[in-house]
Structures are given as C-alpha cells and as structure tokens.
C-alpha cells in the first residue's frame, strides 16, 4: 500500500505542476459547483437527453419519447461483448414478468455495439428470448450524452421520467437490489437522495 500512496501523491503533483490553464480549471470547478447547486435546488432529478437511437428494425427514435404511463423505467446499457451486461439482462429477463406485475416497470436495454455487430443484436436478442425492448446506440451518442463511461450502467427513472438512481457494474444478486428500488419508486418514494 506504500507504493500506492506514493502513486497518488506523484500523479497529483505532476498534474498540478504541469497545468497552465488554471483559469479554465477554476471555471470548470465553478460549473461543477453550480451544477450541484442547481441539482440540489430542483426537486426533480436529471431528465433524459434529446438523442436519437435506433430500434432493432433500424427506425430512428428519440429516447425522450419513451414513456411508461407514469410507471418506473429501467434503462440498462450493454453490448454483445460485455459478459456481465448479458448476465444482468438475463437476470432481469428471468424476473421481468413478476416485476411487471408488481410495479409496472418497463425495461429498456440500450446496446452500444458498433457497426461490427449492430446487425447481430436482433438475432441475438430473439435467440435469448428477452422480453424487454432493446435499442441500438451504434456510435455511442446516447452513451456519451448520459455520461456512461463503462458498462453495464443501469438507470432507474421515476414515473415522471426523472433519473433517480444509477449504477455501474453487475455482480450476482444486484437485480434484487434494483428491484427493491423500483418498488420504492413505484410507491412514490424518493430514492434520489435529493430533497
């Protein structure tokens, strides 16, 4: 752990030493803070950005148009090459019927596969017999707009379309936690941590 501490100090030192655009950083910091303030001041969380994605049939579709009649929505980013993502979605699929009966939740899986494999997503999804909706984000436009850095990355939206929770990575059993949160959201509870 000694080495690791050293690493931390060294890199921070290096950055500070090399940065000449202090002003910019200060501005950036101010933006960040103002962002937090504005997020704190509003009751609702962030909304979905206005970005076009594609359906598995190739139809262009603005993600802002998704709707679930006031019920919660789960949006999960995945790709064919991402094993934990597929495990997560398999786990959702196993539970989807029960979840829908209990909370009316809708699951949308957004594939960030690039053009090497976008055409493979449709037969894969059908082959898996996944029952939820799958959308394509072939050049990562939605991924970028939602600041998705690594996948799996899962969002929970409340009935008004506010992003109230997000999580990256998948470990066995995460689906239970996600569903508990969805139940709270469906019951009108605020889980975003913002008042």
């Amino acid at each position: 752990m000694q080495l690791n501490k050293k690493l931390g100090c060294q890199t921070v030192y290096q950055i500070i030493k090399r940065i000449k655009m202090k002003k910019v950083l200060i501005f950036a910091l101010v933006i960040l803070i103002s962002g937090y303030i504005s997020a704190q001041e509003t009751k609702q969380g962030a909304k979905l950005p206005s970005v076009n994605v594609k359906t598995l049939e190739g139809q262009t579709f603005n993600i802002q148009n998704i709707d679930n009649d006031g019920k919660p929505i789960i949006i999960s980013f995945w790709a064919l090459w991402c094993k934990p993502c597929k495990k997560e979605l398999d786990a959702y699929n196993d539970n989807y019927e029960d979840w829908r009966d209990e909370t009316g939740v809708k699951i949308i899986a957004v594939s960030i596969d690039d053009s090497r494999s976008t055409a493979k997503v449709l037969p894969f999804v059908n082959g898996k017999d996944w029952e939820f909706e799958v959308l394509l984000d072939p050049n990562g436009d939605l991924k970028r707009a939602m600041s998705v850095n690594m996948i799996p990355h899962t969002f929970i939206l409340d009935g008004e379309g506010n992003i109230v929770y997000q999580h990256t990575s998948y470990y066995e059993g995460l689906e239970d936690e996600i569903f508990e949160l969805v139940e709270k959201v469906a019951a009108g509870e605020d889980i975003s941590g913002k008042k």
Partner: protein
Amino acid sequence: MKRLITILIFALLITPFVKGQDFLSKSQVHGSFELDGMYYQADDALGITDSLINGNVFGFNGFADIIYSLGNFSAGFRYEAYLPPIAGFDRNLEGQGFPYLWATYTTEKFSFTVGNFYEQFGNGLTLRTYQEWSLGYDNSINGARVIYEPTRGLIFKGVYGTQRYFWAPFEKNGRGIVKGFDGEINLNDVFGSMADSKIRLILGGSAVSKYQSDQNPMYKMPQNVASFAGRFNLGIGKFNFTSEYAYKINDPSAVNSYIYKPGDALVFTGSYSTKGLGIFAMFKRIDNMSYKSDEAVLSNALDINFLPPIVEPHTYMLAAMYPYATQPNGEMGFQLQINYKIPKKSKLGGKYGMGISVNYSQINDIAREKANDTAYIGQSGTMGWTSDFFKFGDQIFNRDLTIEIDKKFNRRFKSIFKYIYQDYNIATILGHTGEPNVKANIAIVDMTWKFTSKKSIRWELQGLWTSEDKGDWAAALVEYTISPHWFFTIADQYNYGNKHSYEQLHYYTGSFGYTLKTTRFALTYGRQREGVVCVGGVCRQVPASSGFYVTISSSF
C-alpha cells in the same frame, strides 16, 4: 485556444444567471471521469529491468467529461491527461489539455453542433468518428455539423471540419479537411401507405470528401479524395437484411504504399430470428479502403472511415490471446452465427432452458493480380493490383469457430462451457514475419455459485493448446463478489508449454474493487502478459509489465 475555452465556459456559466432563477433550476450538469494509474516494477523474468524502466515508474491516463444542458442547448468539454501515457498507449498522447469542446443547439427539426463531435454515416464505411478510451483512440471532427429532420423518417446530416491528431493543432497545408453529407429515408415512416406493411425498408447514402494540399515530394497526389456509399436495411417478417457498398477514388497513402487504385468495400448481413432462435450471416469485402485525413500517417489515428471486423470479439483471458485486426488494404470473409435457446421444461433444457451458440468466421486475403506487366503487385506509384471481386485469396488471415453452451442448473449454480478453434495469421496481423499461422484449440469452463442472495463465487478454468508461437497455456480465475459493492479476484495464466523453459512463466494478478452506485475503484497487482487489446477491430499492442494498476471512475 485558451481564450476560446474561457469564453465558452463563461458563456455557459452566466446564461442561467442572466436569464433568471427559473433557468438555474432547469439547467443540468453531469459528466464522468476516470483515472488510470500504473506503477511499474522491475521483473527480471519478464525482461523488465530497472535500467529499462529508467525512472519512468508511473503511467497515468485520466479524463473528465462534463456536459451542461439547458433546454435545447447543451455544451461540454473533456479534459484529458496522459502524464505520461500508460505503457501500450501511443506516446504521442503524452500531454494534457481539452481536446473535446462542443456546443449543440437542437430544435424539433434541426440540430447544430460546433466544436468537436462524433458522427457515423451508415456502417461507417465512408465516415465514422468516435472515441475509445481503452485504446487511447479519438478521431473526432472539430468543425460544424447540421442534422435536419424535415419529417419523421427522413434525416439529413452535413459535417465539415478537421480531425483530432493527438495534441497537434491544425495547420495550413497540414492534415486534410473533411466534408461529408448523409441522407437516410425510412419508407415506412414517410409513406403512410407503408406504415403497416410487413416489409420495412430504409435507404441511405453518403458522400465524403477530404482535401489535403499536395506536399508529397515523390508523387503527385489527388488533393480532393471523395468517397461514396449507398446502403439499405430491409426487414421482411422475421428476416432482416442490411448492406452497404462504398467506393473511394484513388487515394495514395503510406498505408497502401502509395498506389493509385480506387478502393471499395461491401458489407452484407442477413438474419432470421424468432423466439428462442437467431441466425446471422455476414459477408464482407474490403479492397484498398484505408481512408485517413493525412496520407502520411500509418498509426491508429486520423481515420475518416471505419471498417467493421467480422470476428467474434473474445473476452476470456486466453481466448483474447490472438485478436484480429482489420486489414484495410484488402480482406474478404464471412461469418455465420446461430443462437438457440433450448426451451424451459424440455428434456435438455431442464427447468431454466439452455443456451447454445455457434459462430464461425473466416477471413482471407483478397485475390490480387498484377495491374500491368511491368509492375509488381502493390508497387508504389502504380495502380497496385487488380482483383476479382468474388474470389477469395489463398492466404487465410483468420478462422474462428466458437461453440458456447450456457446452462443454469438450479437457483444457485450456473455454468458456461466454451470451445474455440482459431487459425491466426500472426505474420500479417502482428507483423511476426515468416511465422506460420497459429492454430489453437481453446476450452473454457466458467462456473458461478451464488451461495446467498448477495454473495457468489465464480471460477474460470481455461486451456489453450497450440504448437506455434508460445505454445500451450493454462489459466484459472477465482472471483468472489458481494453485491452491490465488492469484488475480489485472483487469476493466473501459465505458459507451461513454452519451448523455452525460462519463458514458462506465470502471469498472476490479484485485484479487488469497490463500487458505490456509479463510482468504482479497483486495484490490481501482478503481471500483465504481452498482448493486444482490440476494440472494434482497432488494436493496440500492450507490452509485458509488472506492478500496480489502479483505476477510479465515476459518472454523475
């Protein structure tokens, strides 16, 4: 540049205050960041000595990406630092700054972007700009983009600008200027009479041009190089077909050794799928289709287009040993994949069903003939070669057969079995001139035992058997996870079949990580074997290393 940034950020900042409190509450800021640090240790067995490291014991890659949005307006930036880049990343990345700055205004029918942007026309055969952090790759266009959707089902895009080249600013007579136009029509959306048709048809076309002034001392260069592509996406019931054909005029470059041949590329896919069954087939042919905005650049940079690979991307340790990289000067191949889910409650399927997936892909060289009697194939300054469109070349670049079975035995126990056969042209793909193709058999067992609702253990056992390259390998991994926060992993890859006993090494790693919502921290200690990391057919070589690797990422 500095001033621009300052103005931009200042403008972003004051808008909410100027327009009143209401806007403050509607504005949103979100973003993500990641810091990857490496501390190198000497490791004599790997050939890494103190003098080789020579004091450069740290590698550091980091970025922060911030997006600000207010109604129809959004803007953002990404700060990147490579101080110095982690081993295996392009040394040109060393430095720090703001390579990605943008602002977008969107109305119902229009979207305007200035600054850096990422765009893709069709499959990307004529134009695709994207960023891939794990490769250190970014070919964003810095300029302007307009997207126009006059009606549902109709989209036009226009782009204009220059591409990012590490930290080098654009200079007159430097790299090329890229212009592009793309149009797409969804006939089912546009024509009401087709709205409920069983046939779904989307047509698209694009034209891209680069201008680079002729500064080449040897050859007379075409200063404007145009490329065109047409595509369709046709769905008939459970069948789906997509295709794109692209053509590029002569474009002599360092990549194709300055030949004057026009290039073309074809991608065709067909799939049939129904509940529980998916069948996919793909054909691809590329002939002299490297398209960069600087004729002199050989490295992974300044690509205008994207040539999708057709090999199954492997993620298991040993299966990823021999990854394929697209050969832009010529390749043709096909791929077949079947996914089938044996239904629940059947004899084989058991209570949960059983998934089977079979994938085969083969890529050969294209068949090349002399362009004329006096020049050899590929000779600089000539037409290069002629090629029969439907004839496969003799040389195999890559063959891959993958069979995967996944089975859930009961509520707690599930498993994945995988067999892979690979035939890999290490001479062409990795430049190991004169070496024969590597023919490898790989077997993988991956088992997960979920012993409480939150705790589980996963094992991987892997073997790779080949008489070429480094010989046989065995690997094992044990991972313990506590949802939703913790993971602990130990793994070892053992090159027991290496013909040199001093190279029969263990590549062991131990790691743990903690995730809180979208913030993730992971620390790894151990040895990294020499290898290749590929994403989307673009690869970077990673040297062997030993030491600590730490990564912290978050998004908000």
